[in-house]
């Protein structure tokens, strides 16, 4: 158990430290790097409690895809150095909004944890024998049978948000030249090269 607790404290300290650094570091890109470190240590904590599938999915989805896009946007926006302090000065207007959001999140967490506390039969209600099959099998058995509706709904919501994002950023511009890959690939010398004997002092007319 000793090694287990050492690793637990190791990962938790890193997770808490890096989440603090996310909101305090001056350099926005460094913030994203600390966010990635935070995701990784949370994933490791998941693996330590035996939720190996969840831990790996956190690594793949959040670290491997979402955080890359974060990093992308932050690097492209050119806001690397945060000159203005968050708390002092004229631009401190986002403090109230931030407070409201964080209080709401805290309330929601309380509701969730409280609900868990008062519903003891949540774990025992499942008809599955949870002990002798692997984590991934358990998730698959529950997700595609009892919770198939929620699973599909989540997929539809994601699809809708994707279509929405594409629709918001898509605009048809006029006068843009497009390349036809089919035409580019199917060209051959006889249709694109022409040999012309040029007479002396006479020039050639091309492109007619």
């Amino acid at each position, binding site marked *: 158990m*000793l*090694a287990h607790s050492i690793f637990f404290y190791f990962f938790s300290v890193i997770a808490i430290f890096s989440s603090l650094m996310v909101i305090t570091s001056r*350099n926005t*890109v*460094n913030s994203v*790097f600390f966010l*990635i470190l935070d995701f990784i240590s949370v994933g490791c904590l998941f693996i330590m409690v035996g939720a*190996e*599938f969840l831990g*790996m*999915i956190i*690594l*793949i989805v959040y*670290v*491997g*895809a979402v955080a*890359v*896009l974060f*990093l*992308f946007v932050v*690097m*492209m926006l050119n806001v690397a150095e945060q000159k203005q302090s968050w708390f002092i000065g004229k631009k401190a207007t986002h403090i109230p909004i931030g407070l409201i959001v964080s209080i709401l999140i805290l309330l929601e967490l309380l509701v969730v944890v409280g609900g868990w506390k008062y519903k003891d039969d949540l774990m025992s209600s499942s008809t599955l*024998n949870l002990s*002798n*099959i*692997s*984590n*991934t*099998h358990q998730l698959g058995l529950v997700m595609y049978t009892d919770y198939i509706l929620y699973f599909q709904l989540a997929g539809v919501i994601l699809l809708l948000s994707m279509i929405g994002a594409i629709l918001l950023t898509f605009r048809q511009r006029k006068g843009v030249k497009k*390349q036809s*890959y089919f035409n580019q690939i199917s060209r051959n010398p006889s249709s694109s090269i022409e040999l012309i004997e040029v007479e002396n002092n006479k020039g050639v007319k091309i492109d007619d």
Partner: protein
Amino acid sequence: MFEYVIILGQEIYKILFLLIPILVSVAMIVWLDRRVWGLVQKRKGPNVVGPFGLLQTLADALKYIFKEIIIPSSANKAVFILAPIVTMTLALVAWAVIPMSEDFVLSDINVGVLYLFAVSSLGVYGIIMGGWASNSKYPFLGAIRSAAQMVSYEVSIGIIIINVLLCVGSLNLKDIVLAQSELWYVIPLFPMFVIFFISALAETNRPPFDLPEAEAELVAGYQTEYSGMMYAMFWLGEYANILLMCAIGSILFLGGWLPIIDIYPVNLIPAPIWMTFKILFLFFLFALIKAIVPRYRYDQLMRLGWKIFLPFSLIYLVLTASFLFYFDKLPKGNF
């Protein structure tokens, strides 16, 4: 307390026993790569240092070690130094789950495929960190290109892995190999093997998809500002990643350590040698492709990933699932 120290010592011994052969084989593989490249172009390739030029990579490594490490004055120093370390660590860490034979594996975990996928998707950070921290145009452009490219091709690799998992019914790499004892998946899933191979080329920034370091446009891409040992670490990490992709390909499609046919004289050859042979075969294809295929244009690369590979592998996934369901061949699992 004392037993922990002993366990720690044993683990470190095992890890070194895995890492040192990998580093040596990376050095050899660079030689093989240059040699194949040379032979395709009717040159000799490196043939001076040592027998057949085998020690060429060691000589190169020695040169890099003694070169000065230059850090640009406007670079973000911490991230700049961290980037090659991240690349190399991630490339080596993934080898922990690669089984060389039925019991010759460092850690036999339940979610082996997911682990490999996660580690290979983390690989983009080394490049993007190096490109951004250099604080210069070409590295930054190279890093952005490579991030977009790797994220795009990961999607189709993920779906290809799902194809294989549907046939196996387990995420464990050992189970995946043992499920192929009758028929290697390269036969029923041949189109997926081809797409996996091409996506692996894109994922490891190999030609024809080496746009992040396209020397005609971007000098050397994200490695432009790196020198000495730090450049060598990027380089080692890159080749370790290529070997890793070959290993994943041989586990998913070519039956891992299984012999070609399970009859008397062939199955006397030990399993790790079969595995090595398959990895080398895939790497030989990698090297050949580097020599014979010209570089893609960036928009062609993106189009290939999103508009051709992704829909095609999705359709093949549906086909595989319906075939398995219709003929009642879906793996039932042990519960």
